[in-house]
């Protein structure tokens, strides 16, 4: 039960934790700047990495709720049957885009496995895995939504 709930809220947990890391890293940067007159050089890098994870995985949590901003001005005037068709088309297009974007980001992270970051010398792949993971989750969550709110729906 616990595990299933954790899986349903996986994005919120990962992105929320990443957000906490961002706050802590920046605060640590401020504190060290006053103690050593130089902000801890790694703080900015950790914040940037965590922010990427927060944004892209968080975007999957938004997708799960169907919350991404769109413009429904024009389609609202269509007849119901056309609206359904357009909505289906828009969903398929969105899912396809997320799948392609995820694949591209994955390819890019694999190409950057040996490319270290400026300060911590961590592989930049960690950064590029954020959109790879996030877009994959977005595609999954949107597909689940389209097929009718089965597992993966927020409680």
């Amino acid at each position, binding site marked *: 039960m616990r595990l299933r709930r954790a899986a349903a809220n996986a994005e*919120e947990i990962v*992105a*929320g934790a990443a*957000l*906490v890391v*961002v*706050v802590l890293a*920046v*605060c640590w*940067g*401020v504190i060290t700047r006053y103690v050593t007159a130089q902000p801890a050089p790694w703080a*900015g890098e950790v*914040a*940037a990495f965590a*922010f*990427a994870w*927060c*944004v*892209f*995985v*968080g*975007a999957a*949590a*938004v997708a799960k*709720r169907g*919350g*991404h*901003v*769109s*413009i*429904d*001005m*024009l*389609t609202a005037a269509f007849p119901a049957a056309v609206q359904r068709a*357009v*909505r289906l*088309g*828009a969903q398929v*297009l*969105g899912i396809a*885009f*997320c799948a*392609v*974007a995820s694949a*591209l*980001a994955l*390819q*890019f992270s694999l*190409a950057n496995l040996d490319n270290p970051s400026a300060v911590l010398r961590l592989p930049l792949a960690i*950064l*590029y895995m*954020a*959109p790879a993971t996030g877009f994959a989750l977005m595609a999954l969550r949107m597909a689940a939504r389209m097929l009718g709110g089965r597992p993966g729906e927020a409680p």
Partner: protein
Amino acid sequence: MSGLTLWPIWVLLGLFALNVPVAFAMGIAALAFFVSAEGLPLEIFAQRIVAATDSFPLLAVPFFILAGSIMNRAGITRRLMNLADALVGHMVGGLAQANIVLATLMGGLSASANAEAAMQAKMLGPEMIRRGYARGFTAAVIACAAVITPIIPPGIGLVVYGFLADVSVGRLFLGGVVPGLLLAGALMVSTWAVSRRRGYLPVRDRFAGLPALGRAFREAAWALTIPVYILVGIRYGIFTPTEAGAMTVVYALLVGFLAHRELRLADLPEILTESVLATATVMLIICAASSFGFYMAWERIPPRVAAALAAATGDPLVLLLLVNLLLLLVGMLIEGTAALILLAPILVPVAARLGIDPVHFGLVLVVNLTIGGVTPPVGTMMYTACAILDVRLSRFAIEGAPLILAMIVVLALITLHPPLVTALPNALMGPG
């Protein structure tokens, strides 16, 4: 203009019209361009998508969202409400006036108009309706008051504009103070006129008295110091706006846990989820826009538009008026932050070319597009308030008209008289 590739723009607009989410529409149009263009490696697309998250100034977005979410649960909002009530409860339409003053006080803490509209609609809406305010007017006052919040620093729109236009966020924050107060004043006058005509009563017969006011001030003191230390900290270079955001998060937690003792550990997951959702919604659009922006830069579209517009009119005033009309129209149809992200990269070079101060231009843009959040048929604060208070959009449009009009007057004032925006940042931080 030979060889200018424009079709990605048509693809983008077509996808918008078909209700594809804004972020995906920009990503798809950009990706199609990358695939079709010769000699453009697809890696650039992946790299551009992540690039925006590497911006230190943009980190202020999640921080101020998070801080606002914490403060709503830390008892800060209720204390500010008591203060607002003690200040203006004796005026005609007292509750509506208190609503506007609260949005102004919250402006110094909260950065998001939507969160503000939702919070006030839940907290004050039912009470106003119970005391005889028309439902439509209640929703209109709440949604319009929320326009003030992101203009008075801190504000997410200002942070995003600062990133897009490469302008100091500190200056933008200071530049928002006077326009925010003007908006509050204009809304109060307009509310007063409506309330008088309709006989909306004051909360109490006369002024609450200095002792009561003093008590309310003392109780709200923890919250009231936040905007002061943000502005002072930024002004004296103690911290950057982003660092101020992170410190505000910590401060709000301390006030909630230790000073007010109203925040509970069990609240934190919900606070984090709420903040993640709001942050990711805005940031994904910015990330996608950065890949679409690569296409626009590749085709040199912003400088071309700038040249064309500058050739059409050399008068900065005419340009500002045109931009305002365009944005009011766009703001009716597109969500404000999305519109800002789309249009700022094109409009800022034009403004720069005609010698318009970038801080002034930013405030005009952000005020205009925030007002777009309450102008039918599309407006997020309007939707929020109407959904919570069960008001039809047509009713909102009628009841909100005098309030929206009052805000457009303020927009015209700050457009025509730049010092209203620029005097404060220039006085405190030196001429830019």
